[in-house]
């Protein structure tokens, strides 16, 4: 096998980001803090270039040859997820320009975001368990640092430490499980080859070692996807991290776990015809119910969004039960919708917190729901955008949340899982309660203070982009559904 530069061409989006990340890192060493903002703009340009390449190719598939063949792939699924990750990073970087403009290490911040995005993109493309794991670690290590980026903020540090420990342990469990597969198969790492091998040697999987491997892999992915009972880290981390990083974690890096799980678990389930659907049915039901029930009582908006994120992961996890192309289409579309809705919501909360802290630098718990009282009067823009994101999360038309829920639930029902759909629908109704409560605070209750809130332009830009995304999928779903459908075809 030889290495050629031609073989790298399909990976132009990743390469652009790697080069940009290294440039930012090196130039940043020689720059004054006051001018480091330029690096943020540079990162935006790099992300835009990368997005442009992906969109220009559209639904795109190439047969890779040479060194990368067998470990990475370019197919509609990888491209769809890469686009999602890039868009989330774009939103996060735009919003960060204001949030971190006075931070002396912001060059490192942008480097880490760009590298983390590259890691997620590698996971999206990986068809080899080792490559996938490396992508996972690249993304995770970057985000561990990002979660604790405000190192003078005890909450940030706590969040980062929790995230790091849980993340490291879950990676180990996942790796341990994968190593069993490697051992059982006599040294295979390619997912397709593994699937072929085990479909011919099913008895190996019901051996104690095989079951061990499956359980560990499921648990490892369960941690990364924050499915109940592996979810405990998520609320603490999302609440403690800077809001824009919560957006990156909930909308980006958690979704990386979904694409990996789609590739490994779904292919495994299809090829081996192993009946672990019931296990995932229980996980999905418990996850969505617990997420929604606990979210009802939250006073911190970020924590509420974290639990809502857990609940949404529960909806997506129904894909592992149903295992049909239609359900996977719904799940994949849901991932992108959720990325926009959740990133938008976290960034809006971030903007509110930023402005409140500007007005009163000693304020504590700025994301407390009381601070959102009367937001409709203090900042009509932030209130309206939050309203849109919350209604989208609740699945109210005409938003992305409605279309993706509709398609996903439709597919689950088509596969005759009536009870799952009923539970999901009841959950969806329950979720409306806590989303509507925030809306009530914003529009109905009198403002906590009469001071108007002026929102910095970068935040406005990021929020508007997320709103466009949410409405575009809601109103013109056709192109997104088509892409998601061709992405789903890859695995079947």
């Amino acid at each position, binding site marked *: 096998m030889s290495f050629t530069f031609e073989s790298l061409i399909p990976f132009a989006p990743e390469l652009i980001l790697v080069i940009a990340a290294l440039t930012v890192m090196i130039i940043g060493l020689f720059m004054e803090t006051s001018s480091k903002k330029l690096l943020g703009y540079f990162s935006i340009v790099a992300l835009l270039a990368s997005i442009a390449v992906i969109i220009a190719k559209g639904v795109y598939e190439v047969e890779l040859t040479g060194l990368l063949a067998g470990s990475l792939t370019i197919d509609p699924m990888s491209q769809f997820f890469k686009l999602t990750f890039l868009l989330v990073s774009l939103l996060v970087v735009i919003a960060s320009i204001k949030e971190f403009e006075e931070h002396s290490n912001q060059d490192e911040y942008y480097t880490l975001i760009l590298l983390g995005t590259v890691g997620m993109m590698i996971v999206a493309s990986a068809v080899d368990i080792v490559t996938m794991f490396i992508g996972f670690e690249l993304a995770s290590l970057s985000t561990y640092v990002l979660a604790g980026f405000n190192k003078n903020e005890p909450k940030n540090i706590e969040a980062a430490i929790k995230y790091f420990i849980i993340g490291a342990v879950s990676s180990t469990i996942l790796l341990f499980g994968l190593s069993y597969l490697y051992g059982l198969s006599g040294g295979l790492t390619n997912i397709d080859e593994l699937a072929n091998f085990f479909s011919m040697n099913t008895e190996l999987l019901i051996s104690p070692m095989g079951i061990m491997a499956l359980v560990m892999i499921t648990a490892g992915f369960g941690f990364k996807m924050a499915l109940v009972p592996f979810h405990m880290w998520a609320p603490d981390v999302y609440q403690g991290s800077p809001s824009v990083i919560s957006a990156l974690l909930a909308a980006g890096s958690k979704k990386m776990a979904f694409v990996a799980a789609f590739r490994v678990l779904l292919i495994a389930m299809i090829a081996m015809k192993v009946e672990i659907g019931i296990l995932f049915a229980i996980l999905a039901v418990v996850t969505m119910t617990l997420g929604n029930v606990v979210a009802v009582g939250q006073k911190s908006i970020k924590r509420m969004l974290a639990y809502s994120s857990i609940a949404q992961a529960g909806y997506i996890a129904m894909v592992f039960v149903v295992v049909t192309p239609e359900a996977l289409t719904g799940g994949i579309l849901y991932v992108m919708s959720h990325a926009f809705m959740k990133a938008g919501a976290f960034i809006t909360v971030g903007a509110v917190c930023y402005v409140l802290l500007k007005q009163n630098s000693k304020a504590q718990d700025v994301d407390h729901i009381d601070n959102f009282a009367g937001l409709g009067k203090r900042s009509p823009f932030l209130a309206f955008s939050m309203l849109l994101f919350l*209604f989208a999360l609740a699945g*109210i*038309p*005409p938003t992305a949340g*409605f*279309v993706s829920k*509709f*398609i996903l*639930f*439709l597919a689950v*029902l*088509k596969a005759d899982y009536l009870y799952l*759909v*009923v539970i999901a*629908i*009841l959950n*969806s*109704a329950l979720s*409306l*309660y806590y989303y*509507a*409560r925030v809306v*009530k605070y914003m*529009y*109905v209750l009198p403002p906590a203070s009469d001071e108007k809130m002026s929102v910095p332009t970068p935040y406005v830009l990021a929020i508007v982009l997320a709103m466009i995304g949410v409405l575009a999928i809601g109103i013109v*779903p*056709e192109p997104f*559904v*088509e892409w998601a*459908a061709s992405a789903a075809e890859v695995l079947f």
Partner: protein
Amino acid sequence: MQSIYLSLILFLPLIGAALTFFIKPREIARVVALVFSVIPLFITALLLTTFKSGSGFHFEESYIWISNLGINYTLGVDGISMPLILLNAILCPLTIIYSWGEHKNANQYFALLMILQAGVFGVFMALDFFLFYIFWELTLIPLYFLISIWGGPNKDYAAIKFFIYTHVASLVMLLGIFALYFSTNLNTFYIPDLLGAFAGLDDVMKAAIFLSIFFGFMVKMPTVPFHTWLPDAHVEAPTAGSVLLAGVLLKMGGYGLFRVLLPMIQDMGTYQGQIITIMAFFGVLSILYGTFAALAQTDLKKMVAYSSVSHMGFVMLGAAAFNVMSVSGAMFQQFSHGLITAVLFMSVGVIQHNVHTRVISELGGLTKKMPKLSFIMMAGFMASLGLPLMCGFVAEFLVLTGTYLTMHVFALLAFLGIVATAGYHLWALQRAMFGSFNEKLGDIKDTVSYEWIPMGILVLLIIYFGVNPAPVLEIFQAASSVIPGVELI
């Protein structure tokens, strides 16, 4: 060749809402709102001139939306929907005129009213279930805000109860729609095609689909015992919200009954009898319960709210009786109740606004201080209790006569309700408007022109359609005679 009239009617209020929302001065905002809600009325009137009921869908337009699921943007009207579109087009501008004096965030208030109008138009026009569901849900959001921002003291509870109650019901309906979509296996959400394929399903499936969709409509209408959100919502809602809620939003439930469920009944198979009985039972229950609950109310607005429950019961009963006379009567009841209840809620709104109380026992002798209001309100109450020569009488007469032909017992039970209906209307009028003036109320002004003009227009319409119901009633008769299985009497 695609028609664009329906899209125009649908989107003009939305455009108007967007404009109104950003116009701060209320003097300009309200004019913009009025202009954009009146234009649909003109277009509707124009369409009525070329409209012919009973001959399929008119002005149909269809664009592909999500092709691999068979979802299209399809609009069209027939005799069931056309008069309701007219009703909506009449009520919204009148409501906006009535709210001319609104001071609190007037631009947002008018914008929400217009979103509501657009949502209701959408429900009446959509021929694709996906689209239908979207508009069905879209109507919740503006009303939620109308109640929770401009509402009364207990608005939080009422708004959230309304939102969640009706949302859950919509989700149950959505399950029914899913089931219909899969069991027919046509890969389309086009309502007429789905209904056409309904006959081929097995009986249990048919009953399950019917009941889950029926539940969604029952909550919306609302039918006792699923009505509890309505009195709360009405009591707390601002007057314009109540007018549109009772005037057109409840009609969406009735409309669904005629559009989706009645065509299913003929094909129901073994459960047909039970289902018709269930419908008639809930209809009569609503009539009686609504009437007697209204009799017990001390709050004038709550009394009007319960009268809505009982009047919507006639819609359900007429639909269940399943002959042309009762079904077209039920459809006409929707139209006439929309006009009448608007007058009632507007009158109560004036009392609330000028007298600052709606408690019947605290009022008294208002005729002396408010002659104009008393005149209009009396006309409204007479129409509501079913006085001949007013449109409520025509509707209820047709429903009861039609029902008597096929189900005697239920018709007789409903008659009981009529007696008590006259009772609570007259009693409330007597205590609130006549008798000696309650001096504690102080100096009271009569209604102002922007309030009595829309109310007066409504009263004129009520009398016009009471004397000459033919223009609308004939449309309904033609429409109900083409519903499969409806007996021609």
